[in-house]
């Protein structure tokens, strides 16, 4: 069953169309990732889901979250959902537990219930020792975990996260991914935006790659890889590649692209790429499996758009 149903939704800011006839569905208990470069419309799409951005009216686009339309019933949706915004907007004046207690009021949680819930959430996110800490004393990773704890105060059925791990160190990222996986196994539906391809690959059951407000592709991350890109990539600095290859024939079924000083050779057959490395006379190269980032760059292009 779908928790979120988005159908042909658009959003315009003046003449700019930030989101353009986007459609997707998020199944209950799954983790759905919205991927795209900055300015692709990811955050705008999320805000339309919980009602802090209004979709274009009267163009036939619809959004349903738990069967509610955010344009009419934002309170029901917000009550059932937890939101982790892109910025850590914690109250610096208050300490950790006060931040959470103030927020618990919005859900009408009785003080005793709120305190129990907060204790277990702080334990879950490994912040129990920081219960009385000031916000300024927290590291970036701790602040992020605290914002996630805040979003979980009302035991949400849907958790919405806007770039949950941007700017965090690898340890914290892995910890957050692990917690998100645990929440999903507990039945929480998760919708997140990210530009970390690894993040999408690690935790998403389904990803939608969007660019300039439109859907480019959507599938299970593994299938996106299998169906849209060769299995292996060989990366060589462009000047070396040019010298080595100069006029020579490449093996069959090797695709090349040159961008930003790097030549990339794609092929499903590892041995054929090794033939290319043999032409290099010992120059440095990097031979690896293709990943979601390659798919992403292939889909959205390597050049920067005006909003990046």
């Amino acid at each position, binding site marked *: 069953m779908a928790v979120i149903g988005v159908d042909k939704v658009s959003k315009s800011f003046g003449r700019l169309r930030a989101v353009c006839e986007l459609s997707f569905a998020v199944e209950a208990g799954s983790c759905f990732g919205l991927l795209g470069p900055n300015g692709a419309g990811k955050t705008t799409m999320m805000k339309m889901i919980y009602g802090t951005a209004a979709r274009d009216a009267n163009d036939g686009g619809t959004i349903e979250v738990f*069967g509610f339309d955010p344009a009419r019933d934002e309170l029901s949706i917000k*009550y059932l959902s937890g939101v982790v915004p892109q910025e850590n907007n914690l109250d610096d004046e208050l300490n950790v537990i006060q931040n959470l207690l103030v927020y618990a009021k*919005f859900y009408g949680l009785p003080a005793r219930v709120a305190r129990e819930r907060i204790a277990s959430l702080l334990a879950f996110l490994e912040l129990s020792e920081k219960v009385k800490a000031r916000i300024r004393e927290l590291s970036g990773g701790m602040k992020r975990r605290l914002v996630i704890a805040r979003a979980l105060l009302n035991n949400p059925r849907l958790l919405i996260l806007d770039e949950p791990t941007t700017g965090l160190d690898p340890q914290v990222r892995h910890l957050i991914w692990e917690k998100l996986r645990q929440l999903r196994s507990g039945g929480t539906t998760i919708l997140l935006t990210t530009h970390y391809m690894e993040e999408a690959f690690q935790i998403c059951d389904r990803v939608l790659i969007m660019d300039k407000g439109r859907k480019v592709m959507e599938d299970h991350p593994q299938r996106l890889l299998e169906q849209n890109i060769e299995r292996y990539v060989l990366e060589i600095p462009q000047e070396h590649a040019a010298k080595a290859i100069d006029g020579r024939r490449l093996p069959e079924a090797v695709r090349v692209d040159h961008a930003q000083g790097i030549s990339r050779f794609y092929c499903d057959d590892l041995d054929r790429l090794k033939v290319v490395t043999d032409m290099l006379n010992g120059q440095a190269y990097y031979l690896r499996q293709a990943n979601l980032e390659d798919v992403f760059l292939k889909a959205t292009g390597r050049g920067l758009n005006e909003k990046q």
Partner: protein
Amino acid sequence: MRSSETIPYPHLAWRLYSVWYRHMRVYTKNLVSNGLPPFLEPLLFLVGVGLGLSRYITESMDGMSYITFLGTGLLVTTAMFTASFECTYATFIRLEFEKVYDGMLAAPITVNNLIVGEIIWAGTKGLFFSFAVLCILTPFGIVRLPQALLAPLVGFLTGVMFASMSLLVTSFVKTINHFNFYMTGFLSPMFFFSGVVFPVSNLPKPVQLVAQIVPLTHSVRLVRAVCLSRYDPGLLANLAYILVFVAVFGALAVRRLRRRLVS
């Protein structure tokens, strides 16, 4: 789908209370630095200006001693200034720099709840600041209890009135420095030309007319009436002015700030 399901999100009064509670908790976090100045300021004002100056002002003003005239005026100007600061600089910082509202709006409250809660909070600060002035005036015998106990309520109304106007101003402001125009161009003149420091009845006619239009004049009339128990039917017009002002400016502020908070 389950759209027939009723979701037990908190009712309106609770949602407004939770916004108010958030502001109250943040404000009372620094109780000494936030709570002491409202008492010290009127004390300094009365000692410095009132006692020093009133020796030279022997004429009574509107049938009261100058110190009573000025002191009762301070009961509402303090509410005006605190509510105006709260809903200009502080609101702007929450809106633009701290992104506090983005976090709050992810919880089950609407933009309307957020802004109305903000206005009620500014009214509460008006009430508290008025009360602080009352605490200073009473021991000096400048106002009498129990009738003056109604003054903080006028402070509340004044706070709510200036909060709605200030929020409307904030909805137009792009950089925080623009508030200087509002403060020195509008609030400071009002302090002098609303019958707080001297009666408006001796001013030239056009100035008197302006004094009738600006909001503070109506607060001053109400607060003097309750402090001196001098009630007359004309006060109903002052009260009506305040209520209509709040309704109109509050509605405009909600409309304009909604566009800023919901894209």
